[in-house]
């Protein structure tokens, strides 16, 4: 029973199909593919004919939360609790990263690739842009400034890059997760995580806190998926309950918005695409290194999303006789619910399965056989990932994402286009969304 240690030393880790996890969902049944596609078409045409003809969300400001609830959400204690929890998890993970053993029991890959990625997205969809509050980088930045006795508003330059750095950072993260070799080993994770912290800190010191609001990759990830949350905050600070439409609709035309939403959708689509048998057969028998093909495919997916939205926007502009400039960015928020649908469909079971495994591994951060949290024997709930349930979640998520995307595009069309041409002007965008939806379902169906 001691030999496996020798084996571990010999082969520290191997890149599985996903950064962590080797269990994938069964293919989506064909009848559900057809049902989803039919619903997508139906929703799109119904939206064209039946939805409102003049902007509607501008006046809807959500239902204010009862004062006691809002007071709790705003209370220093509650906020400090969340921040404290985030910092403890961060510290715990850093302990495992620096001092833990480099084997399959390390919790670090799970925290990085499952909790921070899928977990943060799901949490944000429910609770809103939580990363803006609990981002450890924010508190590191604040601590550094305080130690240096410098004002918290200190900056060297004004931040003008919008979501650009976030798009680049998310792309790099997904590349590490899905393509890089040995990405679940501690040496690689040490370089990646400490490198990310250092770069983030420098950017914070240069650009100040504005960078942390939009430029930080995980802040953008959380804030954009967080627009779908029923919990929202109005411009005047009032907490409101709102539909998942008001948040994305309120997004302004920030630079980089098209890029970051394309990365959000494109990378998830790439993950589904890369599981296709014909694709990996081609990649692994090619004479070029597989990572070249994989990187090219991931970039192509993101460019295809941005490019197709740009082309659809240009067509819309042509039909509506308005300039094409800015059209793609104006409709980019419609991609957020679609990306969210893809994300839930692809990663629900990963979240249940590997999220739970991560919690089980967290109990022993140093790899010494400890059970400090008492979670060592936690098992993923099989009922939550039963094939029938997963297939239904996948279709409901993708079709709901489509529905929200279509309604958002409609609202945006009647807002920025002339009333007489708004209906015809949104046809190219609706067709594009049907394409994304059927494409997403097809990726889940064909393996």
């Amino acid at each position, binding site marked *: 029973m001691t030999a496996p240690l020798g084996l571990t030393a010999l082969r520290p880790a*191997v890149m599985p199909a996903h950064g962590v996890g080797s269990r994938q969902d069964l293919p989506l049944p064909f009848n559900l593919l057809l049902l989803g596609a039919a619903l997508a078409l139906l929703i799109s045409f119904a939206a064209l004919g039946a939805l409102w003809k003049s902007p509607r969300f501008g006046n809807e400001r959500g239902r204010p939360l009862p004062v006691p609830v809002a007071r709790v959400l705003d209370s220093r204690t509650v906020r400090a609790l969340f921040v404290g929890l985030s910092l403890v998890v961060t510290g715990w993970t850093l302990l495992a990263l620096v001092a833990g053993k480099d084997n399959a029991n390390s919790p670090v890959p799970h925290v990085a690739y499952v909790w921070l990625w899928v977990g943060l997205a799901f949490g944000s969809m429910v609770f809103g842009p939580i990363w803006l509050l609990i981002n450890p980088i924010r508190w590191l930045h604040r601590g550094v400034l305080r130690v240096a006795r410098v004002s918290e508003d200190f900056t060297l330059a004004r931040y003008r890059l919008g979501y650009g750095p976030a798009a680049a950072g998310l792309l790099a993260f997904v590349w590490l997760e899905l393509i890089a070799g040995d990405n679940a080993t501690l040496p690689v994770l040490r370089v990646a995580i400490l490198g990310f912290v250092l770069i983030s800190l420098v950017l914070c010191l240069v650009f100040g806190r504005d960078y942390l609001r939009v430029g930080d990759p995980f802040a953008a990830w959380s804030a954009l998926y967080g627009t779908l949350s029923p919990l929202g905050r109005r411009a005047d600070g009032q907490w409101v309950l709102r539909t998942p439409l008001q948040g994305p609709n309120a997004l302004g035309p920030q630079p980089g918005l098209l890029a970051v939403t394309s990365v959000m959708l494109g990378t998830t689509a790439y993950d589904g695409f890369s599981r296709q048998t014909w694709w990996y057969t081609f990649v692994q028998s090619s004479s070029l290194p597989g990572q070249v093909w994989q990187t090219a495919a991931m970039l192509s997916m993101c460019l295809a999303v941005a490019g197709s939205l740009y082309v659809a926007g240009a067509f819309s502009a042509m039909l509506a006789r308005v300039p094409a400039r800015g059209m793609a960015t104006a409709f980019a928020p419609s991609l957020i619910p679609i990306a969210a649908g893809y994300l839930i469909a692809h990663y629900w079971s990963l979240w249940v399965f590997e999220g739970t*495994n991560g919690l089980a591994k967290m109990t022993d951060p140093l790899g010494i056989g400890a059970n400090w949290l008492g979670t060592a024997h936690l098992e993923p709930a099989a009922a939550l990932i039963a094939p029938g349930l997963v297939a239904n979640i996948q279709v409901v998520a993708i079709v709901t994402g489509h529905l929200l995307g279509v309604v958002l595009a409609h609202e945006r069309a009647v807002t920025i286009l002339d009333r007489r041409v708004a209906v015809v002007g949104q046809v190219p965008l609706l067709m594009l969304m049907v394409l994304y939806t059927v494409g997403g379902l097809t990726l889940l169906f064909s393996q």
Partner: protein
Amino acid sequence: MWGAVVAEIAIGLSACGHDWGRTVTSTTRPPPVLQTTSAATSTTGGGPPTGTAPTSSREVATAAPTGLSIAVRITGRKVSPSPATIELAVGESLTVTVTSDHDDQLHAHGFDVVAELVAGKPATVVLRGSATGVFDVETHEPALRLFRVAVR
């Protein structure tokens, strides 16, 4: 003896970046082929992971009494037959025989099965479907997916 080997294989899997803590291979009904496989693999469990050639031959593998079977040949980075998905019912077994032209490690994800491959010598493992899902069966040097098992 077989039970101990299974346990060792499962622990050895910690080498691969994920350990589901789930052993799937049958302990109740060892087909004849397992004698040779287990003898070979137990060497892996009991000593340094060198010279652990499973010595079972393909004839033995195809003679496995029940369930499905598949024989895969690896030549460099070429996998034949071409990767595909094999359907397996929960409780059903799949006998896998792999012959590689180079030393390598066979890993059936989710089944928690690893076996050392020695150039030119067929190695046989038995995968038994327990939890539903799709699982990759791959080698590590180079990383190749041989096929995929859909357990339903």
